[in-house]
């Protein structure tokens, strides 16, 4: 049981940080893309959505080629700062952020586009600056859609397997998240431990779903009452 605690804590840490990263990046990108029209906008949208449809192994390959110790970006990073993402939990965070980004981004973009632009215009006529319009009007109105996207992103980050295995490896106690630990236990024929891990994972996922349902519902009720 205690042996299962290490991958559980690591998984929550990685998924939590990955959700944070994809939340900030996804919401910012979605807000900018709703606000500004520029050449190649839909192409950028497609690129940002790509991790959702690409096999995780393809993403893992891209990450190794870019971020590896001999990768295009990774080599410079390693030679300058002496650090690399390969075989570290930070590498797992990068992989999980990448796969969960489209879920936040898509949710946020749809939510922002659903905001009545008259309300934003009204705020501007009242002398509010662009940033204030965003934080006082657009963001609060789009919040529900963004939150739904972030919940899905967290669940996706928790279950990330392919890209993580390729970039962060499967190092017990270091980068071995729940999904990787289940894989390792089954491969080694340790069915008992696999069963414990599977039960824990299922339990955590059910909790996340229940919690998100509750948060979204109470948010909705508050809005209806208003």
């Amino acid at each position: 049981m205690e042996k299962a605690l290490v991958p559980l804590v690591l998984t929550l840490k990685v998924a939590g940080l990955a959700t944070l990263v994809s939340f900030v990046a996804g919401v910012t990108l979605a807000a900018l893309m709703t606000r500004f029209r520029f050449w190649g906008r839909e192409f950028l949208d497609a690129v940002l959505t790509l991790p959702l449809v690409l096999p995780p192994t393809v993403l893992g390959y891209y990450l190794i080629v870019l971020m590896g110790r001999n990768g295009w970006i990774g080599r410079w990073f390693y030679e300058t700062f002496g650090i690399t993402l390969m075989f570290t939990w930070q590498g797992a965070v990068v992989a999980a952020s990448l796969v969960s980004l489209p879920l936040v981004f898509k949710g946020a973009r749809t939510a922002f586009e659903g905001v009545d632009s008259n309300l934003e215009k009204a705020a501007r006529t009242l002398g509010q600056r662009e940033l204030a319009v965003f934080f006082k009007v657009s963001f609060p109105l789009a919040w529900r859609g963004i939150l739904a996207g972030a919940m899905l992103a967290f669940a996706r980050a928790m279950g990330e397997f392919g890209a993580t295995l390729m970039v962060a490896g499967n190092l017990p106690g270091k980068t071995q998240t729940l999904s990787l630990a289940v894989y390792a236990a089954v491969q080694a024929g340790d069915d008992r431990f696999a069963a414990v891990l599977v039960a824990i994972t299922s339990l955590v996922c059910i909790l996340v779903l229940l919690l998100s349902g509750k948060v979204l519902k109470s948010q909705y009720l508050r809005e209806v009452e208003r």
Partner: protein
Amino acid sequence: MRGKFRLKLLVCCCILALAGAFAQQTEAKQEELIVSAAASLTDVFQEMGSAFEMAHPGIRVVFNFAASGALLQQIHRGAPVDVFAPADQKSMDRALEKGLLRAGTRRNFASNRLVLVTPGRATSSIEDLQELTKEEIAWVSIGNPETVPAGWYAKQIVILEGLWETLQPKLIFAESVRQVLDYLNRGEVDAGFVYETDAAISAGKVKLVAVLDQGEAILYPFAALAASRKQDLAQRFMEFVTSEEGRTILATHGFGNP
């Protein structure tokens, strides 16, 4: 007009899908032999399969390459495999204990050696196993000893040299010996344990440091599986591997006689 075009497109897609399904069906008429083999046998067995298919028209050999431990688990859980060829005696012994083998078919067909290698473009240079403790060696890749025979062999030797505890923080476990090789090829690790035959494939990309033959001899066994319905075919394949032609193929890939 657009609707008509869409309809045409849909019809075309359906026809293509049907054609694909039929093509597969005709292929299925060939007899198939499924061989689960150690990852280190990937290249040599692919060539072996082609040669066997040439000699036996109408038969298709399908390979499933992975770490021997993982293959054993698949077979134990009922994977429809005809021949099992792991890289160690331990996996085969376990298969025997579980009653998965057909009695009397087990046999050793090749031998190999474990080597320590570094990436070819490595700036650091080490000359033997003991030097893995040097500070400039940050990461050493090894197959997961639980499932990968190459990793298990390596672990035994490292323990024998009294380095297991010291090296522990540097070890990067891989899912198969070929993943270790890939990490080395890309220069993502500073050293790694692979078989001599793997190192030969990546000659130029990896540098041989030392041959590690202080551990137990590495012998590849194979056997037909009790649950297989193609005992005849399995037997013929195993005979082919141990035949003159089979031995030549094994030798050109650097495998020794058992």
